[in-house]
């Protein structure tokens, strides 16, 4: 348990460092939130009104004081409010984070559903036509940028064939069918690249495990092929796949930006981009703080899962 406590403390320290770096960096970046807000759409604001707004937003305070306010708020679990419309940062995250997570989870499920069977099959039939075709497809999918895939999907399925809506979002409670339909396109777009990575990982891991002693022993004991393949091979091959998945889930937390943009999925990436554009300091820092915390939590959970799943680590 002391290991766990140490990990958590280290993670908290990391989160604080990351938040501070972002706080400093975003304040150093050129651009004045007050001026930008009043310049929306190319308007030319009167400098007097800009100065007035800066004063009201508390931007004329020394950076040290602003940082102090930020840390003080953080201790009370308050991430502050947006400079643009005074909307609480925490409320915005609470509304949108679940949608980004939903997208990531849906993409992961699709990717696993595709990658595990094909990867295992390809490994067990190494060198077959299936193996070669699957490998080539994986390479192809990995190489096309996700925003190109997304754009083509919208063009083909929504704009031309009218089979799918052109992006957007409806709450699950309001229209479940529509919700899933809207979820499908961005989830598939993300799942593409992810499944290619997982396919390669699964294939390699299964091949690796299949050659090990305990599998040979299982064969020798005369266990049925299905039993050997699933019980022994897949179960042992799963842990490296999970590690890779954990790493990628973390990356996806900030990596859904392009997909959310292309499909108008109102997740957490859109307000992050908008906040950076508007130099909405509290919003940027708040969102990064929450995503990096989440990233560390996922990593921690993955490590624990890894220990549970991998018999070798579990025993020792």
């Amino acid at each position: 348990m002391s290991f766990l406590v140490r990990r958590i403390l280290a993670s908290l320290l990391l989160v604080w460092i990351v938040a501070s770096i972002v706080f400093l960096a975003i304040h150093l970046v050129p651009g004045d939130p007050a001026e930008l807000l009043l310049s929306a759409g190319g308007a030319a604001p009167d400098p007097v009104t800009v100065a007035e707004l800066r004063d009201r937003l508390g931007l004329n305070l020394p950076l040290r004081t602003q940082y102090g306010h930020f840390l003080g708020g953080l201790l009370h679990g308050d991430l502050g409010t947006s400079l643009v419309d005074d909307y609480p940062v925490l409320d915005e995250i609470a509304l949108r984070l679940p949608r980004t997570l939903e997208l990531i989870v849906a993409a992961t499920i699709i990717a696993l559903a595709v990658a595990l069977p094909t990867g295992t099959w390809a490994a067990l039939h190494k060198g077959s036509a299936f193996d070669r075709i699957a490998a080539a497809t994986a390479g192809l999918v990995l190489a096309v940028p996700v925003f190109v895939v997304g754009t083509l999907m919208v063009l083909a399925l929504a704009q031309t064939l009218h089979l799918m809506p052109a992006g957007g979002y409806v709450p699950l409670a309001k229209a479940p069918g529509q919700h899933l339909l809207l979820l499908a396109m961005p989830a598939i777009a993300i799942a593409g690249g992810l499944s290619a990575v997982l396919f390669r990982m699964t294939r390699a891991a299964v091949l690796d495990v299949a050659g090990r002693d305990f599998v040979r022993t299982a064969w020798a004991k005369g266990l049925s092929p299905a039993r050997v393949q699933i019980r022994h091979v897949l179960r042992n091959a799963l842990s490296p796949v999970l590690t890779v998945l954990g790493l990628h889930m973390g990356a996806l937390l900030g990596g859904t930006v392009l997909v959310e943009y292309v499909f108008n999925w109102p997740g957490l990436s859109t307000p992050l981009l908008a906040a950076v554009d508007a130099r909405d300091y509290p919003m940027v820092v708040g969102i990064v703080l929450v995503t990096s915390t989440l990233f560390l939590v996922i990593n921690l959970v993955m490590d624990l899962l890894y220990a549970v799943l991998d018999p070798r680590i579990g025993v020792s």
Partner: protein
Amino acid sequence: MKRLAVPAGLVGVIVLLAIAAPWLGLPDPVRQDVGHRLAHPDAGNLLGRDEFGRDVLSRLIWGARTSLAVAFSSAAIAGFLGTFLGLLGGWFRGAGALLALGSADIILCFPPVLLALLVVTLLGPGALTLVLVLSVLFLPGFARVTYAEVLAVRGLDYVEAAQAMGATTARILFRTVLPNVAGPILVQLSLAVAAAVVLESGLTFLGLGVVPPSPSWGLMIRGARTTMEQAPLLLLWPCAALTATILSINLLCDALRDAADPRKTVTLSSRS
């Protein structure tokens, strides 16, 4: 080693094409001719012209120069620094390791796009900034891989033997330890190059990448997305170039992995 020849050859051809761009007799890749914008392929312009009437083939090959230069240099810088950090961390452990891996973890915590946004807005967009962003993004991967490998290697007999023979730490690290951990690092290197090519296009799409008019694949894709309905082929060419490059690099990466790890060559003669 024979398995290495084909993918290495493929990557070599792409790199050679990029390097040889100035001597291929191509039209000027930045010369505009708006009157002939979106022209179909013809004898003078084998792949047609883009939205400014520039020759697409020429931009594709010159774009490879930019895109690959960014990818290779960022992977190299990240690889060099990351390996160095990992070596030190793994060898000296204690405070050094904490520092090396801690800094790597800080980078991992950042959503990559945010990191790019921050760095690019601070320094202004351009190929050099892109190299910086990408190397920072890839650094933790190298540091972690090297660290893990060094930990595994440092207790082995031949390392201890070298120590007993009184070799200096630097000599042990670079002559004995490094060659033994080089395999995974090489694999990481090729992975980074492939990832960099894709990331370059994504960041350029967001306006955070290469600055026009110098051609890059990312810029070409971004431009072609606008004219997708008028000239769909313009989207195809850079995507195809990207795909071919990444496939070749992946092949090379797998071959390297096989070559680097003697145990896995037996069980994992992967071609995927």
